[in-house]
């Protein structure tokens, strides 16, 4: 089996860019990725593109050929949709394609344009990641669904809003030096606690913002990198995916995410590493409680222990296991269909040593990325390692 390398990464600024079209955002990320990789566009054999709500936001279906054109590549292109995990599955399929020997160079990433819509329409748009008949019609919103999980967690294991506020404060602090982040300002625990409620127990600073942005990665085989003298020091050594029942109420446990358990188990086994080997993680913190659930599914903490990780200083930038040094979805931003690619781009930069927060993890060799769709009916986990 061929080893897979990340040859280059490209991101747009994550933030409010209501006037920028999806095609312009993705082209920007893709060109930056080619520039970073030093791989010519003519060598790209496939484009895997993630997007969630382009049909609502831009009245644009069939986006993959449009994005191939925008990125200046002439190859088969496919759009992947798995709600907030769209780019995660796009990357996973790129890894599998390169491993199979079908292609040596694949571009994977995604784009979401959101702020051109009024907030209530974005709320409605995001809600469609839940079961329309039995959840959305019953009043479930995207923050509301995670609020249901947060309350179930508090009931099962304990914890309180202050624990969640520490996660918000941590991720905001991490975003300050990140040039791509939407919110490069610190938020105190007290400020987070005092913010207005969105869906209690979650308040404004428990929630990720509405974001426009794109991500792109140039994924290559190790042989291609060697032959073409491409500097690609980070390898994707593990990939895993899991699926659960669509509606939260149909899950085995309301405060756990078995789809992510499955994705993590598969990714660790694939890479031949375990949770104890992980030096740094980027996890899907669309809401503060989601970071807790992610850390527990990744086996980095036992069920019931993840809630205190930020408050106890374990997952802060100077802790033993820094989590979301990019700022996470929480502060870096969450352009839904781009997020899974962005996490891997940030982790690659952290491991290469050229991320503004790389000095927090100077000896890191193993990183893990966790990307979730909906209320984690879908999950994708990747293991990245510094190649020897």
């Amino acid at each position, binding site marked *: 089996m061929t080893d897979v390398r990340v040859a280059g990464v490209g991101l747009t600024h994550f933030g409010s860019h209501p006037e920028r079209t999806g095609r312009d955002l993705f082209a920007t990320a893709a060109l930056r990725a080619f520039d970073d990789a030093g791989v010519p566009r003519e060598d790209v054999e496939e484009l895997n593109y993630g997007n969630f709500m382009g049909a609502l936001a831009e009245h644009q279906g069939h986006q993959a050929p449009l994005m191939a054109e925008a990125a200046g590549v002439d190859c088969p292109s496919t759009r992947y949709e798995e709600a907030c995990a769209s780019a995660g599955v796009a990357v996973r399929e790129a890894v599998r394609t390169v491993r199979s020997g079908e292609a040596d160079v694949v571009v994977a990433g995604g784009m979401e344009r959101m702020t051109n819509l009024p907030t*209530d*329409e974005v*709320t*409605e748009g995001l*809600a469609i990641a839940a079961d329309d*008949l*039995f*959840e959305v*019609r*019953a*009043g*479930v*919103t995207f*923050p*509301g669904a995670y*609020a*249901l*999980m*947060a*309350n*179930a967690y508090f*009931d099962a294991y304990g914890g*309180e809003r202050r624990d969640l506020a520490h996660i918000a404060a941590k991720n905001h602090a991490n975003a300050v030096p990140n040039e791509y982040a939407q919110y490069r300002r610190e938020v105190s625990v007290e400020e987070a606690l005092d913010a*207005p*409620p*969105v*869906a*209690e*127990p*979650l308040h404004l600073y428990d929630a990720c913002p509405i974001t426009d942005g794109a991500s792109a990665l140039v994924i290559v085989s190790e042989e291609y990198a060697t032959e073409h003298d491409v500097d690609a020091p980070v390898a994707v050594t593990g990939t895993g995916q899991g699926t659960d*029942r669509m*509606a*939260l*109420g*149909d899950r085995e446990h*309301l405060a756990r995410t078995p789809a992510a358990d499955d994705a993590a188990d598969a990714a660790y086994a694939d890479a031949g590493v375990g949770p104890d080997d992980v030096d740094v993680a980027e996890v899907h913190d669309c809401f503060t409680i989601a970071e807790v659930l992610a850390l527990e599914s990744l086996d980095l903490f036992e069920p019931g222990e993840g809630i205190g990780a930020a408050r106890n200083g374990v997952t802060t930038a100077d802790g033993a296991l820094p989590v979301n040094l990019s700022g996470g979805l929480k502060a870096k931003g969450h352009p839904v269909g781009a997020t899974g690619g962005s996490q891997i781009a940030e982790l690659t930069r952290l491991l290469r040593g050229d991320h503004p927060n790389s000095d927090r993890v100077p000896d890191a060799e193993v990183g893990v990325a966790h990307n979730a769709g909906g209320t984690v009916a879908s999950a994708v986990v990747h293991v990245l390692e510094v190649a020897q």
Partner: protein
Amino acid sequence: MSAPASNAGYDEWLDALAAGEGFALACPDGHGSLPPRRVCPECGSTALSEEPLAETGTVETYSVVHVAGPRFADDTPYVNAVADFGPVRLTGVLRGAEPDVDAVAVGDRVAVGVEERATDGEPLVVFRPADGEQAVSRPADGE
């Protein structure tokens, strides 16, 4: 607002719930699910029968929603809850208790029926505190 498009199986289920004859689907092994459904999602059995819901359900989790989409704009703030009704859990809006995190608790007993959304009059699965149960003015525990 126009009437929602019909969804065979779901519409009949909602009508039954409105008539006080709510049901779930169950396979011979007792796994519950909601219609329309041809296969038990737990075990793959295709022998699904209609089983009545329990008279009352138990709130397993809830949230107080302050920000909602256009279809619930005039319903906010409202309590959204997931309640266990025997073969299945149902998700709905809890009415008859203050929309306050301390006015509701996990473990509260609720009845289920169908009422109208305040925003547009469309049908809505609604929980109400079960008869004889006190669901208001509970002191907050902890903190």
